[in-house]
């Protein structure tokens, strides 16, 4: 037979031979070419369940020998062949493609496209999939409760209606009401009513028919959008419809018949009567408004198990019922079109697609809606797991388009604040957000930052030193845990700082430590204090800002990683109480990214007093190190140099680094005398590496007995302080704790 074929390639001939050699294929029959397709007729042996072998036909109507027609595109293997079954093959089975009566039946044999299956696994895989499909059809195994209930096959739908089905299904699971009413809006975007685009608003308007009276049904004078009723009929809770049948509704008679099948005919007729009398063309005429052309009926049918891709057994079947303007009565032959619901973007849909599920969204206060903040918030929003307060005082400038998460054009948008623009974008996902146009530093911080009062996490993405200062020193408390995110070195380094519980480790501690890392870590040093820091750039007349020149690609690369770190932290079930500093560095030419995490136990805070007007904050790691050095030999005093950062604005000293006492220092049971050899050189280098941020702060020493700092200690300190402009600190480890001299 294959040899007789003319006009088909040898590749196709080989494919036909492969089909013929497949074990289930008993016979290859007629091969014909129509247009761009060769049709290959094959006799296919189906493995019937044992109990139907004798009869030769299964309970589902599949025969032991089925004719399978292979539609083989002439450009095969560019396109895959696809199977067709006899025209009278049972169509009440799931996993069939849309079908027109009289045509060959097209089974859906794979859950990926046949083209992909062909190019992934070859023709053989399509043959196996077809064989499995037929065998499953014969054994009534096409429905699988684990995979989910297959949606009713609707071969001829008209229009497309956006709806939040998650919200409707949630309503259905909460209470069983025979009828629910929704606001249904639609418009025609073409010449015929088949071009309908609609929207069904949730939640329902309430069970009373009166709820519709408040709505302005009809066609508005200025808008093309019509406002019409949408009624949902829910089957009784005890009625589980486990019969799979394709869509059969085409007019009101068949719709009513379906309602009867679902034991909903009484409620259906009653509501229909109401609609005819109160919401139809008659009423519109009375109100002197243009009547709507149609309304929406939805049947919610309970299936024996959850529908594919949902966690609900409720299948929603929507129908457009067209008014007949000739008569007030909705006659049996009133046109009814099955229509299609398309999912409106909502958190549940985002959960499903992104694979993250959370019951209650996490509330985020985002400070800064610039490049980094916009990207962080959009990434988080798209997981469906977050809600936002978006705080920024700035307005969008056209040059922001180069790196911002939003693309904004049109002069009318340029006067809109970044927080409003971001809110507008996030709202399109149906994610809750609130724009706040305000200078963060003007907030009354002493009351615990009123900006994001309900936030569980505050993400500071401003990269503003003044905001960081405000959050550290002016906010006695914050509503949520503070997460600091910032980019350095043209986005070659990203930082995520997470404060400890109860602010036991604060953001200023973490950033003082980040500065300290520059001493020993060349990558961090290069990023923070190399030659790629902020520089003033001008973008057009009067349009300038302090910014770093870098492209969207680089900023996106690091901001995505930063968001991933933030998301992972927030999503983990048990959060440690310690603080964290996470530093990510990209090796630019290779694009290798390395993240390092540092943990911080609570910071030791030695508050100022009348004698010493500086607050001292000793990092937990430094406290531990001093303790260990002191306990190493408890019979001798030990000591060394302390270094760190000084914030003269807040009069805070951060002790972040210890330097061993230079050679020649004397350690006795009652005395520690420190030599100074080489210290000046050492600090010269530290200053250079840290841009002068990390400096000499003073000394520490231990006492072998739990005595308080001695007079000699105080005199030594005084001597040190006289030689320096900056404050000098002397710490003593005594009795297992650190005290200031």
């Amino acid at each position, binding site marked *: 037979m294959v040899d007789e074929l003319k006009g088909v390639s040898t590749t196709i001939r080989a494919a036909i031979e492969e089909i013929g050699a497949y074990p289930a294929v008993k016979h290859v029959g007629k091969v014909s070419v129509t247009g761009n397709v060769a049709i290959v007729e094959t006799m296919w042996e189906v493995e019937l*369940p044992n109990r139907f072998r004798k009869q030769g036909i*299964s309970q589902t109507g599949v025969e032991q020998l089925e004719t399978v027609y292979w539609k083989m595109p002439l450009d095969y293997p560019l396109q895959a062949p696809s199977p067709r079954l006899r025209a009278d093959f049972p169509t009440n089975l799931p996993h069939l493609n849309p079908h027109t009566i009289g045509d060959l039946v097209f089974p859906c044999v794979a*859950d*990926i496209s046949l083209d992909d299956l062909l190019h992934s696994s070859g023709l053989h*895989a399509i043959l196996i999939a077809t*064989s499995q499909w037929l065998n499953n059809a014969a*054994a*009534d195994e096409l429905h699988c409760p684990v995979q989910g209930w297959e949606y009713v096959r609707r071969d001829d739908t008209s229009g497309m209606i956006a709806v939040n089905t998650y919200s409707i299904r949630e309503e259905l699971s909460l209470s069983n009401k025979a009828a629910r009413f929704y606001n249904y809006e639609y418009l025609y975007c073409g010449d015929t009513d088949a071009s309908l685009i609609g929207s069904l608003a949730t939640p329902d308007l309430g069970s009373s028919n009166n709820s519709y009276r408040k709505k302005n049904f009809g066609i508005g004078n200025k808008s093309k959008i019509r406002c019409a009723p949408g009624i949902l009929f829910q089957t009784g809770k005890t009625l589980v419809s486990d019969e799979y049948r394709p869509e059969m509704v085409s007019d009101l008679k068949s719709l009513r018949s379906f309602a009867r099948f679902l034991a909903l005919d009484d409620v259906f007729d009653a509501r229909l009567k109401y609609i005819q009398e109160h919401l139809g063309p008659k009423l519109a005429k009375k109100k002197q408004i243009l009547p709507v052309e149609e309304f929406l009926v939805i049947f919610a049918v309970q299936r024996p198990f959850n529908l594919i891709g949902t966690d609900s057994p409720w299948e929603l079947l929507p129908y457009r019922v067209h008014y007949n303007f000739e008569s007030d009565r909705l006659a049996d032959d009133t046109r009814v079109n099955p229509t299609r619901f398309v999912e409106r973007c909502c958190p549940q849909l985002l959960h499903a697609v992104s694979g993250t599920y959370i019951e209650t969204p996490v509330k985020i206060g985002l400070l800064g809606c610039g490049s980094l903040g916009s990207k962080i918030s959009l990434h988080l929003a798209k997981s469906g797991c977050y809600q936002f307060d978006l705080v920024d005082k700035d307005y969008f400038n056209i040059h922001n388009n180069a790196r911002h998460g939003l693309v904004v054009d049109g002069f009318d948008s340029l006067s809109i604040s970044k927080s409003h623009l971001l809110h507008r974008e996030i709202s399109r996902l149906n994610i809750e957000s609130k724009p706040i146009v305000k200078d963060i530093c003007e907030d009354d911080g002493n009351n615990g930052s009123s900006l994001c009062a309900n936030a569980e996490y505050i993400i500071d993405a401003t990269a503003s030193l003044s905001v960081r200062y405000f959050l550290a020193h002016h906010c006695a408390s914050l509503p949520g845990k503070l997460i600091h995110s910032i980019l350095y070195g043209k986005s070659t380094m990203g930082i995520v700082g997470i404060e400890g519980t109860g602010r036991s480790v604060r953001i200023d501690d973490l950033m003082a430590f980040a500065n300290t890392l520059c001493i020993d870590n060349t990558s961090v040093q290069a990023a923070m204090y190399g030659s790629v820091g902020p520089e003033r750039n001008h973008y057009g007349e009067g349009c300038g800002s302090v910014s770093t020149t870098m492209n969207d690609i680089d900023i996106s690369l690091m901001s995505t990683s930063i968001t991933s770190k933030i998301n992972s932290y927030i999503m983990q079930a048990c959060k440690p109480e310690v603080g964290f500093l996470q530093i990510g560095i990209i090796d630019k030419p290779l694009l290798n990214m390395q993240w390092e995490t540092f943990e911080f136990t609570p910071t030791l805070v030695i508050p100022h007093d009348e004698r010493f007007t500086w607050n001292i904050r000793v990092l937990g790691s430094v406290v531990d190190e001093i303790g260990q050095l002191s306990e190493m030999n408890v019979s001798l005093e030990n000591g060394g140099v302390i270094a760190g950062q000084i914030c003269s604005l807040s009069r805070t000293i951060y002790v972040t680094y210890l330097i061993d006492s230079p050679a020649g220092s004397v350690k006795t049971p009652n005395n520690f005398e420190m030599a100074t050899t080489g210290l000046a050189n050492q600090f010269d280098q530290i200053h250079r590496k840290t841009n002068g941020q990390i400096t000499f702060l003073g000394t520490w020493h231990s006492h072998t007995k739990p005595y308080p700092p001695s007079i000699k200690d105080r005199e030594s300190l005084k001597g040190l302080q006289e030689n320096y402009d900056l404050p000098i600190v002397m710490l003593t480890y005594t009795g297992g704790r650190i005290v200031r001299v």
Partner: protein
Amino acid sequence: MSKKSTISHFPVGNGDMTLLKIASNNKYYYVLVDMYIRQNGESDDDKCDVLEELHTMLEKDNEGRPYVDVLILTHPDEDHIKGFKEHFYRGAPVDYVSAKEGGKGKIFIREIWSSPLIFRRKSKNNSLCQDAIAFNTEAKRRVNLYKKDKKIGVEGDRIRLIGKDENGKTDEVMAIVYQNEDIIGQLNEVTLKELKAKVLGPLPDDDFEEGTNPDKNRSSIIIQWGVASHGYTTTKNYILLAGDAGVEVWDLMWEKYESDKDKLQYDILLAPHHCSWHTLSHDSYSKSDNPQVSPSAKSALSQARQGAIIISSSDKIKDDDRDPPNYQAMKEYQTIVRDVDGAFKCLEDHKPSKAKAPEVLTYKLTNSGPQEETAMTQESNSAKSKRRTTATGSLFVGTGDAIGHG
């Protein structure tokens, strides 16, 4: 492609080896009932390499161990336990040593189901082969662990006993004993909504006539396995596995269930004792002039559902006096399945690929009852290693080119 439950019968000659693979909650649970694995080096062209086949069907756990969720030994005869010592792991789970690269690794048994025969002393009627001794030792280790800890142990230490011991040896462990007519819905401490396994035997010695031998065959575990299709709860597949239970057992079964026949119904029956005449008759086939079928035993074994299959796990059945397998017994079974449009199959004859060696016979357990898996959907052994793609499960897992995300 969703997971489907199956039952696989391994052609081992005169012996039993059956693997139930039950799909539940999108996972497979593996129950191996008996085994007959020849020693290494014994394989040849006309024998199925059942060890290889078994390893192909089983999964490995997170620690890389091939495992079964439950191993059931119907009774400790060599033709039901051969290969245990060499191919199955015995001992504390923590001491498991993984196979060397390229090696198979011993099969890890998460839970054992055993008859209380493990408590019987060695006697004329209870002599044990080396594999059965190894099984007994392992089963006793697990029972003793339970006695000591008074709680179900971790996977690898778990055991369930099917039936009470006549001499009270199970009295202190009754919490891990399944008794006759219990319906089991759990495997390895996991409840499967698709499973309803009804315990029918072993019958207590008291039920039998005085003076009859309490042999091992009589003590076979008998279970009617009720399996629903994956995700469903209504049982659509009944499988009766009864080890070597003989005619006296089936006489009693009929006495017990004549008025409740559903308890004996099956879609698949593994003909007891490898199609032995002694399953159906009190008379010796070779020594008796006119051996008679016991009507009650045959009635008990005749509760075949529409399209039922009776399988003889035996050598080829020839028209001679051999027993088992016995030609006349096969004829009797054929009369049973004829009435329900079913079929009788001898595993030794199952050669769908026309190869010299018989092949594993597998049935999918569907919503419409058992459905044979054939070469049309299940690739032959040789092809399996070359092309394990869609036929083995998901379309997205296999050797095909990666399908990415655009």
